């Protein structure tokens, strides 16, 4: 893969002014791939503390599963999503291993969203958006090639600003790009002067510098060529202050979902990830302040009172998700079809049971994207060896649905095509 494209993506996500990413013409082959795709967009939501599975997983499987306490907010949407139980990456346990959710077995391997962005991302102004519902110091779950963690944008106002920058901001960005390019021209001269007076070995060493300058200049050039791209105008009204206080996380989540829907609707980006942190903040649900912090609730130690409150938080997460799915359902794409039909939305986690820090059996919900939905698909580690599916198999199917040739993902190679397509 072309490394300059990669870098551009990285910076796009990093939200640097220098790197305000713009559209670029895209390789015809990949465009063709995207045209045969049944889904056009990918949204990956990851909850740091996962979901309390005893309240999430129905006892029965298939289409007639009973709605569980956690699934209640998604009740009306049951034909639009699939609930998976028993899938995971067969990775090690521990809180530290949470960010392997989209990476597979090893944290730092290129994550699902970035694999997809590498192929379909360049069709839009932002190859990918990496978001987090408020801060909270959670390690990034998105990695691009070369083990580079992508920092997440955690303020709704920053996300909005990035997506729908004002004319003044854009002209400043253009200025910085242009003058940044002339700075690089200038230092290339410096390096040439330096090169004349160093040893042969150091001359070779300086080649790294020249290559880097050329690559960065190329990227800036591409961004400049797209700078006049029309920024869609939207009439969304942000809250008067950013809900970034940890105890407003759910509010932040819900605003970010709104902005994500806007980003998809305006075709500003087609690949979005959203991390949901899990600190010790105390939430208010339905006007009632919970008695314990989120993180403490997750270490419920089977205490029924704590579990009850944990389920309330999980249900809040599902309520936000349902709101997002409904918005995508009611929004039409260019062909008049619901946006959800061509958007794959996954809600999952790298933590199967936060109470035990277990990374086995990662609860996963996938909606939309033209897959066959409406069922609870249960998998088991005790099933015969040749039928043991991994979360990576689901990722293979999702990529294929997006028109991307994929045959393996972090040790998985079977896909779930037989069940979902």
């Amino acid at each position, binding site marked *: 893969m072309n490394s300059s494209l990669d870098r551009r993506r990285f910076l796009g996500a*990093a939200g640097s002014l*220098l790197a305000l990413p713009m559209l670029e013409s895209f390789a015809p082959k990949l465009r063709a791939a995207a045209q045969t795709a049944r889904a056009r967009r990918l949204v990956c939501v990851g909850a740091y503390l996962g979901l309390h599975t005893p309240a999430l997983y129905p006892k029965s499987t298939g289409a007639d599963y009973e709605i569980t306490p956690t699934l209640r907010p998604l009740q009306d949407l049951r034909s639009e999503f699939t609930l998976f139980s028993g899938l995971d990456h067969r990775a090690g346990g521990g809180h530290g291993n949470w960010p392997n959710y989209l990476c597979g077995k090893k944290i730092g391997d290129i994550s699902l969203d970035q694999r997809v962005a590498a192929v379909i991302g360049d069709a839009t102004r932002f190859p990918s958006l990496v978001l987090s519902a408020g801060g909270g110091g959670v390690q990034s779950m998105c990695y691009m090639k070369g083990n580079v963690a992508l920092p997440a944008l955690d303020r709704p106002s920053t996300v909005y600003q990035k997506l729908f920058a004002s004319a003044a901001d854009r002209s400043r960005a253009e200025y910085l790009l242009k003058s940044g390019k002339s700075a690089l021209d200038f230092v290339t001269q410096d390096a040439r002067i330096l090169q004349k*007076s160093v040893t042969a070995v*150091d001359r070779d060493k300086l080649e790294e510098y020249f*290559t880097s300058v050329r690559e*960065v200049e190329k990227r800036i050039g591409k961004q400049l060529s797209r700078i006049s791209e029309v920024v869609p105008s939207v009439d969304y009204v942000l809250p008067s202050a950013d809900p970034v206080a940890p105890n407003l996380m759910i509010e932040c989540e819900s605003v970010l979902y709104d902005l994500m829907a806007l980003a998809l609707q305006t075709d500003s980006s087609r690949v979005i990830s959203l991390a949901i942190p899990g600190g010790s*903040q105390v939430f208010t649900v339905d006007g009632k*302040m919970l008695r314990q912090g989120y993180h403490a609730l997750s270490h419920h130690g089977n205490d029924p009172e704590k579990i009850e409150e944990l389920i309330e938080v999980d249900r809040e997460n599902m309520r936000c998700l349902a709101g997002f799915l409904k918005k995508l359902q009611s929004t039409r794409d260019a062909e008049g079809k619901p946006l959800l039909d061509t958007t794959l939305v996954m809600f999952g986690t790298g933590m199967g049971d936060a109470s035990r820090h277990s990374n086995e059996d990662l609860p996963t919900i996938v909606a939309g994207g033209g897959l066959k939905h409406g069922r609870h698909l249960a998998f088991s580690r005790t099933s015969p060896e040749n039928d043991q599916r991994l979360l990576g198999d689901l990722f293979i199917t999702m990529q294929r649905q997006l028109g991307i040739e994929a045959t393996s993902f972090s040790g998985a190679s079977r896909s779930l095509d037989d069940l979902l397509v």
Partner: protein
Amino acid sequence: MQRSAILLTLLVSGSVANPSALAAPESLPIHVRDFLSEHCVDCHDRAEQKGKVMLDFDKIDFSSPTSARLLEQVHRVLEKGEMPPKKKARPPHTQSQSLLAWLDTTLTSKVPPHTVTLRRLNRTEYANTLLNVFGFPYVIPPGFPADTESHGFSNVAEALAVSPPLLDAYSEAATSIADQVFPQPAPPPPPSETVIIPPSQLSRSAAYGPSSLVVDNRMRLALRGVFSETSSFGAKVSGRYRVRFKASAFKPETEEPLILKVTNKEFTIPTEGVVEHELMVTLHPGQGVSFSYANSPNRSVDANAPHDNFREDTLARMKKHPRLLAAWLPLHEPVPGDPNGAIKLKTFEAKGFELLKKAVADAYHAEFEKPDLDLSTATEENARRVIDAMLVDKNPTSFGGLALHHYIVPWVWKYYSEGPGLDIHSVEIEGPIETVENPRYGKARGLQTRLFGMTASKMDPAKHLPGALHKMLSKLFRRPPTPEEAERYMALVRDHQSEGHSLEDALHLAIRTAMVAPQFLYRGGTEATLSPYDLASRLAYFLTLRPPDDALLAAAADGSLSQPATLRAQAERLLGEKTSQDFVESFVRQWLNTRLIPEIMPDPTLGPFTPNTQKALMLEPELLFAELLRENRPISDLIDPDFLHTHSSVGRQMYGLLEMPLSSVKTPFAMSRISIPRGGRNGGILGQAGVMMATANGVDTQPVLRGKWVLENVLGDPPPPPPESVPAITPDTRGSKTIRDLMAAHTQEESCARCHLKIDPLGFALENFDAIGQWRETYPVAGSKKQKNGPPVDASGLLPDGTPIRGVVDLKKYILSDLKPFSRCLTEKLFIYSTGRVPDYAERKQLHVVADNAAKQNAGLRDLLLQLVSSECFRNL
């Protein structure tokens, strides 16, 4: 191996890939050719290339780096008598000597230096440099590409690459900093408005437990030492704002009024009734108003410890949910020999704390979900015993603490329900009443003066610009700009202005440009020796990890730094500065690998390992090194000193120093220096738990890794990499085979024995240190890690020169008996660290002189370092 492939291409005469890049190969002298064909080519011909060394050629290109490496290798093995192998005929002494002499001359005079000398600032140096130049810390953002290590150090020129993502990150840093020097003008202020903030939006909580809670539609404060902030209000612009609030006391304990601190003003709240107050505050963008209960009897830290009613509350909870208790019980076992029937959590076999937590939690869950869980055990008596067990050990990294942690953290609620507390009923914020200047503009003016000598607004470009740019470039390039550079930057600024941009924007661009320029990002020289300024940088980054200070730059400017005496004096001065502590920390952590300690997860069955243990283990070698440096104590004290620095509980646990005082959780962390007898097992880098832990993996010891580490970092005789396709041996003391049995294979196979006869005895000598560096006389009992009285540790061995040793004490004696190898090793490490490259043959010879002298006199560490700095090779490129 890649290297040999290159060797072949470059050395086989006539097959040079790119002849234009290289000088013509020269013929070898006849006596050299004869020696090689008689004694070497049997194994090292083109066909066999034993050990991937090929010596079957009659011409050589001296300018190729691989030639130099090969010749050095030949010199080394011949000098040590390692080659030709013992079973082959010995070459006559005179022949060997004549080849050695030829190699020596050739390597000294004919082979040019071949290492990279352009040295990019590594991450630490980069951050320190920005701090130094701009006076405020630049926080390296996540995703900033990491540096690569080489030869054990993170500052070696060859490995410090520039890549496109890194250049991007540099550009981003440059823009962010230039924006602080020249911020965009403030937008026009919005009209004043009044915001009513509901109590639910007043509580901002994070970390462990909340700092306030909303109860009965009031925001309640209960703890001292934390404050709560408006969570949904942030000032849009810098200005004066009017704050009005209503507050009352909640369940006050005494008649004394409660003190409410609002941002920076204190208010008295009577024990009864609701009061209303008003104050004016200055807020900057994003800032809200904060509230705290300044005289609460309860401190926030108490909220994380078991509270007074922990016992009763837990008991009540267990009574209400008997399953909670019944599931905990099977995880406990009686404390042996306790007549009162005390219980403790069972020991779980798990490597690493995360795994341990999982093991405990899994076991608990399994019990909890058992349909036939015996609820009849959930008696009050058992509940009390479980709670006692929880309270025995509050250390969060122990079993009891683990259970406690799961119980306590959520229980902060108590303080909010029982009071005393302060309730905030409503808050109104009105403003901006008037705007004030955002402090970033004042800061920016300061930065401009720091960087350019004056603010941009006072600058008359025709008059001041040359001086201003000269000042900025001198700071960033760590030397005055050349006339050419000065002229080019003048043109950059003028051109930008003539394109219609402001002076501010033009200087903004000059900063961004200089911060991605090679002169800023790299150090190193362009001539045969370092210029005085390059030398100043080398010395400063070496001993302080920072750019040169004014005194050094002055010594560079007047040329005095080129004199060894001045350089030495400057080095001595820098060693006296506080910043030299950074050198000690950085060098010692990398040399002795103690930087790995935080990444190692110790096996809890080995013994307690708290955050304090970790801190102490890392500090011990640093304090030793620092003391030697400060007091100029002899280098032999690195091996066998008569003192040690440790933490009392670490001293007791790791070294058996039971005379050290017991410390409790409440004792503040402190390292003590104690005297010890020389010649014992304790003290010195080979007696320090941290060093021993860093050469193991936290779970078990691997003598080969330790032996290799000693060869590389103490004796300076690194073994070649192991042959491919040989699995590492993991000691399995559970089975019948001992690690010694397993490793006996090393000495039976000739190809293994060549290196392992050197490696293994050194590793075995350190077997008395377990995987966290604790002294042990026995291995654990097979199959049970808890029982430590298994087979005895046998630390004896035979060193390659035939010296028998019985363990670490003898090993230390052996090193002291001839300090030369250790002195050479240390000197070379310091050279690599300071110059960012491996010495070539000629430099190594100079270093040997420095090191051998130091060994002979058992010189002080400070003297050795200063000798190195004043040696000629320190001034080489």
